[in-house]
């Protein structure tokens, strides 16, 4: 006989009790390990998705709304000895022409064979009439190889849409192509530069097709770089700065004559302010010109329509022009019958900050009349406005500025025919800035003479000096490490391991309580043994050591098996994620990843927890004296403390209550287990968000708006005006008469909503009209910074907090979970001018339709992103009964814009469905905890019945019928059940008080009543059936013992 033998003999003898404890440990361990492995699996899967969407691409130069030379890719490749390819990234609308299926917001990628080569894929070149689509696109559109696909893309241009004098054109271009192949995930079917696990709907088409159709030959808006040696971004950017050319900055150099005169102009019409400011700052010897089309030049009753006027710097003209002076050519002088000294008026359109055309006028005094044919003031001063440059006659003019062709006279046509866009008048550059200064630029051309320039600037020319003066970063051009940032984003999103651990907390707690309870029950059978060992000279320490050693085997075995069960549990969880969430997260790419360290963590956590539970229970059990232990263990009746109050028991129900209070530990354990489970079920059920169609109040998450519209091709007309409606073809439809449209500007970023599992640092920015929201008191806030007026929060967004520091709002859940930030934190962006823009989070919205986006004011948006002047997003309001009609009609009229319209409540429900899914998981796990509680209650009850057989036998002997005994025992347990459920309900209600006080909260009463009723009935079953079994046993034998 030795200690080991003693322990093993004991384990063998009490194996049933040990198995029960083992089961409890396995359960807790499985839940802990499963949760941790889920976290690893999701991180692993997101990383895999990042690698699938980027392939071999490590770095990217994205020029956003600009274009660079496609040739730049080869230059970078040559300098850095890396692989590159240039692409065109566009948004488009794709459709199956045979089945009327379409996808708005597809990603159209203009490529050549270099794209596949970069990624080591052997895929043949795509012809101009072909396309390769991703597997997701094929499934969505029900397409296969050799089918036709229609692709419509925004007609992008180097010229910003809505810059003055850009072309008033059809906004999109469509192609019908044959599907050559379908690219799965291994063939870059998931290609995307956005940090999102959602698979984009990709269509790969020929870059040369896009060059031809969009008139952007030789240009690209992204250069993809593969560098296995992984140089740093700094090396790439410094090399970029070395090889870039004026064309990459949107600048063109043109030789004007043989006298060394050159002109620098922008393919964006207006020269970027960064460039012109840099030139002016260096005080370089150049002439600055701003040319503009004026509607009318008037002298008394005479007027000349639609003429170009040039505002020039003195050093261009060669002499000073004062701000109130104007120089006119002879043709104009004759047409107006004006002379030197006369005051003539210029009338012109300007585009105000709200993109509205406003006619304005200014007067000038004629200083000089110059010949119409003039070496200095010639046709070359007219910028290459695309709507004018190729026009043969005035009738062919095409511009976003309205031109009344009825005003064009024959002599105007003749002037155009002979002199084209030769300015009829010249004013000072200062005057021109005052009148025609716009956010796109201050000048339309810069002229210099190379010999004069070289004398002034040590033998240099202007063009290379410009490239030295500005850097690509000034124009928001830089090469970024997308692979590294993508992987970081995938690994730093919400930690699902911790999340599931938290969601599983109650189950784990229930498992631990059950383990403890089962262990206590097993110890109770061995009380006498404990006392005897003490009487034989075993110290408490000896006994504790033995018990611990006995259970170490159980703990280690249970934890090990629990880890294995946890892996299976994790497979089940991920299966659920891949199926239940597939439609929302649009990925079924969640794969299991088993990390040994994680398994070890789960194992050790369980071992420690189980050890602590068993240790402390054992220590507590040893606190009694040996005598007490021996006597208690010897007793044939249930242990009970005396009734101190000595109250008489006068009924069976009273006896039931008495029995419940006698064994406080058991009763409390049962009540706590039940209460925990009910608490979790109610809390999660009560927080499920279902936005009813009637939840449309202004303060709700819909803001009181009825529809949310998103388009692929932006609207460049104000849809609220008659003119805008007419341009969009909506003018005759009465459905739109009472509808109000609220367009919003947006800068594309990463989706920060709950639909994106990756960490996001730069969500999409939306510029909103704060006065509209303020008047309507739209939306509500979970949190606002101290400095914000709680009654009028929206005007705060119009403020500026300093140089390039502005305020912003986002959904509170996005701030906390998507961005991992708090109120007062700052998000960093780069504005259009290459400057750092800090957006301070000053408020968190209650769940709204804006989830995933960052809101700033429209004024701040236009200030920092002036070239984005058109809207892809709109909120629409109308009478409730007109909603369907407006939605249907709008979808029909604007289908070429790729418009998606959803009701705002539907949109909110989509977001809510993800949070509801989390709550459902929590609820399921809570339900599991409750199940454990009811099973535990059943076990206690059955065990209790077995121990009380003798008591029951005595009761029968003294005349109690089985029915009365059944009633007594049933009542005891119903008291425990009811107390547990009521406790759970009360604690849940207390926890929900803040929700009750929230204005938008709605309690789902029916749902909760059904849940609680279900729990109660389930628990009653766990009382009834064990009771029946216990009472059916032979009582006579028990009586004999008594």
């Amino acid at each position, binding site marked *: *006989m030795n200690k080991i033998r003693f322990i093993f003999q*004991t384990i063998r003898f009490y194996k049933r009790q040990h198995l029960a404890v083992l089961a409890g440990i396995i359960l807790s361990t499985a839940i802990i390990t499963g949760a941790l492995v889920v976290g690893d699996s999701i991180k692993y899967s997101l990383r895999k998705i990042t690698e699938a969407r980027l392939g071999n691409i490590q770095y990217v130069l994205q020029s956003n709304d600009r274009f660079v030379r496609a040739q730049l890719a080869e230059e970078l490749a040559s300098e850095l000895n890396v692989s590159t390819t240039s692409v065109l990234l566009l948004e488009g609308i794709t459709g199956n022409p045979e089945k009327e299926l379409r996808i708005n917001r597809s990603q159209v990628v203009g490529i050549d064979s270099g794209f596949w080569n970069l990624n080591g894929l052997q895929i043949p070149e795509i012809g101009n009439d072909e396309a390769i689509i991703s597997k997701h696109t094929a499934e969505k559109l029900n397409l296969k190889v050799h089918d036709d696909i229609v692709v419509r893309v925004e007609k992008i241009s180097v010229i910003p849409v809505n810059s003055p004098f850009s072309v008033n054109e059809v906004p999109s271009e469509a192609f019908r192509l044959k599907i050559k192949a379908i690219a799965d995930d291994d063939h870059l079917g998931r290609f995307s530069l956005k940090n999102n696990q959602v698979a984009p709907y990709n269509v790969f088409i020929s870059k040369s097709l896009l060059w031809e159709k969009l008139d952007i030959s030789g240009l690209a808006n992204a250069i993809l770089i593969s560098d296995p040696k992984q140089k740093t971004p700094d090396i790439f950017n410094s090399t970029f700065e070395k090889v870039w050319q004026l064309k990459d900055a949107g600048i063109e150099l043109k030789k004007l004559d043989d006298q060394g005169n050159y002109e620098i102009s922008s393919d964006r019409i207006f020269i970027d302010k960064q460039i012109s400011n840099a030139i002016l700052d260096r005080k370089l010897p150049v002439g600055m010109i701003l040319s503009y089309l004026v509607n009318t030049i008037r002298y008394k009753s005479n007027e000349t329509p639609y003429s170009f006027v040039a505002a020039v710097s003195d050093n261009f003209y060669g002499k000073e022009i004062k701000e109130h002076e104007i120089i006119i050519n002879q043709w104009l002088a004759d047409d107006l019958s004006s002379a030197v000294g006369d005051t003539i008026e210029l009338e012109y359109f300007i585009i105000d900050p709200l993109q509205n055309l406003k006619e304005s006028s200014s007067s000038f005094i004629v200083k000089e009349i110059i010949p119409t044919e003039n070496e200095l003031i010639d046709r070359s001063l007219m910028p290459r406005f695309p709507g004018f440059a190729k026009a043969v006659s005035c009738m062919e003019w095409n511009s976003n500025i309205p031109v009344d062709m009825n005003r064009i006279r024959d002599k105007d046509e003749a002037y155009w025919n002979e002199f084209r866009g030769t300015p009829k008048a010249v004013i000072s550059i200062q005057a021109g800035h005052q009148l025609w200064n716009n956010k796109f630029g201050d000048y339309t051309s810069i002229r210099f003479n190379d010999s004069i320039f070289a004398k002034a600037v040590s033998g240099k020319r202007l063009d290379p000096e410009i490239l030295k003066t500005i850097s690509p970063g000034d124009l928001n051009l830089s090469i970024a490490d997308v692979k590294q940032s993508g992987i970081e984003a995938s690994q730093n999103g919400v930690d699902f391991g911790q999340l599931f651990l938290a969601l599983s907390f109650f189950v784990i707690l229930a498992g631990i309580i059950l383990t403890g309870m089962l262990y206590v029950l097993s110890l109770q059978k061995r009380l*006498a043994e404990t006392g*005897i060992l003490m*009487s*034989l*000279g*075993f*110290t408490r320490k000896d006994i504790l050591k033995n018990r611990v050693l006995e259970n170490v085997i159980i703990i280690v075995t249970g934890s090990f098996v629990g880890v294995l069960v946890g892996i299976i549990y994790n497979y089940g969880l991920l299966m659920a994620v891949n199926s239940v969430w597939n439609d929302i997260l649009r990925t079924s790419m969640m794969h299991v990843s088993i990390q040994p360290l994680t398994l070890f963590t789960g194992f050790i956590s369980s071992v420690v927890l189980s050890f602590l539970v068993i240790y402390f229970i054992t220590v507590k059990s040893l606190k009694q004296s040996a005598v007490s232990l021996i006597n208690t263990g010897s007793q044939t009746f249930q242990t009970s403390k005396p009734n101190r109050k000595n109250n008489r028991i006068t009924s069976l129900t009273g006896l039931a209550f008495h029995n419940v209070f006698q064994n406080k530990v058991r009763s409390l354990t049962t009540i706590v287990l039940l209460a925990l489970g009910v608490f979790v079920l109610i809390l999660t059920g009560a927080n499920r968000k279902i936005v009813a169609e009637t939840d449309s109040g202004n303060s709700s998450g819909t803001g009181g708006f009825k529809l949310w519209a998103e388009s692929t091709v932006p609207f460049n007309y104000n849809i609220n005006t008659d003119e805008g409606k007419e341009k969009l073809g909506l003018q005759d439809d009465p459905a739109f008469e009472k509808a109000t449209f609220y367009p919003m500007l947006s800068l594309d970023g990463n989706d920060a909503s709950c639909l994106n599992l990756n960490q996001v640092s730069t969500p999409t920015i939306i510029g909103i009209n704060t006065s509209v929201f303020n008047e309507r008191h739209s939306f509500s806030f979970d949190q606002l910074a101290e400095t914000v007026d709680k009654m009028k929060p929206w005007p705060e967004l119009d403020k500026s907090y300093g140089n390039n520091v502005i305020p912003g709002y986002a959904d509170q859940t996005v701030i906390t979970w998507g961005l991992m930030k708090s109120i007062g934190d700052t998000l960093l962006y780069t504005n259009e001018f290459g400057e750092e823009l800090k957006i301070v989070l000053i408020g968190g919205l209650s769940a709204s339709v804006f989830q995933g986006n960052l809101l700033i004011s429209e004024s701040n948006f236009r200030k920092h992103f002036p070239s984005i002047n058109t809207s892809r997003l709109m909120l629409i309001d109308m009478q409730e009964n007109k909603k369907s009609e407006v939605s249907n009609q709008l979808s029909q009229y604007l289908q070429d814009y790729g418009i998606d319209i959803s009701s705002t409540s539907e949109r909110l429900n989509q977001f809510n469905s993800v949070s509801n899914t989390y709550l459902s998981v929590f609820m399921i796990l809570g339900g599991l905890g409750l199940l454990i509680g009811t099973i535990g209650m059943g076990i206690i009850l059955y065990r209790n019945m077995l121990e009380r057989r003798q008591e029951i036998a005595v009761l029968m002997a003294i005349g109690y019928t089985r029915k009365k005994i059944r009633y007594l025992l049933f009542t005891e347990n119903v008291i425990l059940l009811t107390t547990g459920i009521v406790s759970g309900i009360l604690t849940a209600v207390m926890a929900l008080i803040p929700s009750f006080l929230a204005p938008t909260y709605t309690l789902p009463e029916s749902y909760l009543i059904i849940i609680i009723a279900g729990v109660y009935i389930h628990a009653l079953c766990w009382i009834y059936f064990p009771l029946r079994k216990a009472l059916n046993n032979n009582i006579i034998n028990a009586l004999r013992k008594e």
Partner: protein
Amino acid sequence: MKIVLEHISKKYPTAEKNVLEDVSLTIGSNETLAIIGPSGCGKSTLLNIIGTLDKPGSGTVSINDVDITSLNDTDTAAIRNEKIGFVFQLHHLLPQLNLLDNVLLPSLVLRDKTLKATSVSRAMELLETVGLADKIRQYPGQLSVGECQRAALVRALINQPELILADEPTGSLDQESAEQVGNLLLSIHQMFKVSLVVVTHAPLLATKMNTVYSLQNGHLIKS
């Protein structure tokens, strides 16, 4: 071995009065002593105090002039293991161990290595003495109550104690078994020169002891 109890009193929290009132007792070497009295009078309490299983409310208990009421758990456990052997009314053999292992249980924590080394041979001798040598592999569930009680007696003797405390050792036995156990107790006293204190209702057993005490209203009265 000499055990001296001086002015021992003991009151249970739920009782109205002391169960033991100013009890003094001296137990010398090789003595036999019976304590009798009605049910619930405190006989077992007194026995438990003598055997260090319980502590008095007031008074002192000394063993070989050492005040045991001031000793810690480890020291009192050592006393119980080495000096005292208990026999209870219910044998309290551990069901998971066979007869031999049950008997050897006290030797697991014996500090005297020499004595520990000879435990098995000693156990076999004692089991031979009580007529259980052929049942060493059997478990308590396979033995009669009388056989279990005899085994409990052997367990109490395994570490060669100087005192045996028996609390109603024959209380659960039939007449024949009771007589057998009673005689065994006396034989063991004679063979091993151990002092014997027996709490009993059985007059026959009580009269076989050298001294009989009666516990009445908490007071110990020598009969």
